[in-house]
């Protein structure tokens, strides 16, 4: 009986430890966005060269953005007709395209002030985090929402940025679709355009 109790206690302790450690590891999407914003802000406000800033921003993106997810989303239904080899080729070039495009867009900003305000859980997989880019003397305040994929709560990832209601992932999806459609549905036209962008 005593042994039974001991075993029960042991499992109870294990359960509590595991539950507690999971909770302490999981990161709230709002805090996750805040930490990325802080990191990016720090890089942009320092006197690095543009190339150095781009390199550092690329590292942040690689670590915190679901680049593969955005890549497949951007391809839309065309993804379904691709062979595995073609998918791999696309994702490889997309990652290079994304990192170049993302970091060069951000590198234009100097010390952006972003306030992270709130978060709203859409479902088990997605949470939206809202923030504002504070106004400067040249630009008005801009509302920025972040779609965070929380399938793995310990490792949330950014999958879309919505600026004043405009989803950048959706813009990209329509842009890619347009490129493919104007070339009679040929995915190679998109791959060619992406390679051209990466190499320019």
């Amino acid at each position, binding site marked *: 009986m005593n042994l039974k109790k001991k075993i029960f206690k042991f499992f109870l302790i294990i359960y509590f430890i595991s539950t507690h450690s999971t909770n302490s590891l999981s990161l709230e999407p709002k805090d996750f966005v805040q930490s990325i914003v802080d990191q990016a802000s720090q890089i942009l406000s320092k006197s690095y060269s543009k190339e150095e800033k781009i390199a550092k921003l690329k590292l942040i993106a690689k670590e915190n953005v679901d680049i593969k997810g955005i890549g497949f*989303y951007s391809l839309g239904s065309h993804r379904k007709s691709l062979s595995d080899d073609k998918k791999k080729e696309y994702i490889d070039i997309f990652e290079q395209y994304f990192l170049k495009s993302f970091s*060069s867009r951000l590198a234009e900003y100097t010390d952006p002030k972003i306030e992270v305000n709130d978060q709203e859980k859409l479902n088990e997989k997605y949470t939206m985090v809202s923030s504002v880019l504070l106004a400067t003397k*040249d630009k008005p305040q801009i509302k920025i929402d972040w779609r965070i994929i929380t399938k793995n709560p310990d490792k949330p990832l950014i999958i879309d940025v919505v600026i004043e*209601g405009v*989803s950048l992932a959706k813009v990209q999806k329509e842009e890619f679709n347009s490129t493919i459609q104007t070339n009679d549905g040929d995915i190679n036209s998109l791959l060619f*355009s*992406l390679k051209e962008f990466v190499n320019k």
Partner: protein
Amino acid sequence: MKKIILTFLITISLLFSAHAGSESENSLSGKKNTNPKDCFEKVNRATFAFNNGLDKVIFKPVAKLYRQLPSPARTGLGNMLNNLSNLTTIPNNILQGSLDTAGTNLARFGLNSTVGILGIFDVASSVGFPEYIKEDYGQTFGTMGFGEGCYVVLPVLGPSTVRDVAGTVISFVGGDPWYNVTVKNDTQYFTESDYYVSRITGGVDFRAKNLETLENLENNAIDFYASVRSLYIQDRKQKIINSKKIIDTQNDSDWEEIDTE
């Protein structure tokens, strides 16, 4: 007679667009088109290229010069233009059934035009009025359930849709009080040039506020035309919804697709 023709054209164009969503079906090819309905894409692309050229030669340099104005001067001009836009926003608030907002905007217009010296100072915001949200007839048609119809690029004026063009026409046939007292009717207080100057300044102000954003977008686009089209259509949808929620410009099922990987 002119009015009858215009009314007829608006009715036809709205009926034409009433059931046209952005996810369209190409009836000739039977192919599902996931792009917004771009019925005149070839002409649109040509007009877009023309506008882009015009922008590089005229609008962008002017916007850069405008940026050189002291910040308070630009803010004052922006405030004046916003204040004038109340004249179109208020009737649209009423048409959309937002009578409270119409009343607030009327009070805002009165306060800013008098205490705020012709709208130069946004006194209303300083004393705690809610955030001002512009409305136009295109948005009102949207709230009434009319689809956006085909996407069109207008020479000089830029991106629009059949629904928004119909909305603009309404402004010119009596829907815009500012147009009525400047261009349409010969009042002794305003001249036609007041209207055109305000419209051109509004365009330059918008361009100046978006100099880097548009340059950035163009430099990083695979297809700049398609990017602008998507931006315009998403932005209009958001303005029609008038949602303060942190989501929902898009259908969540869009994202479910990627989960099948």
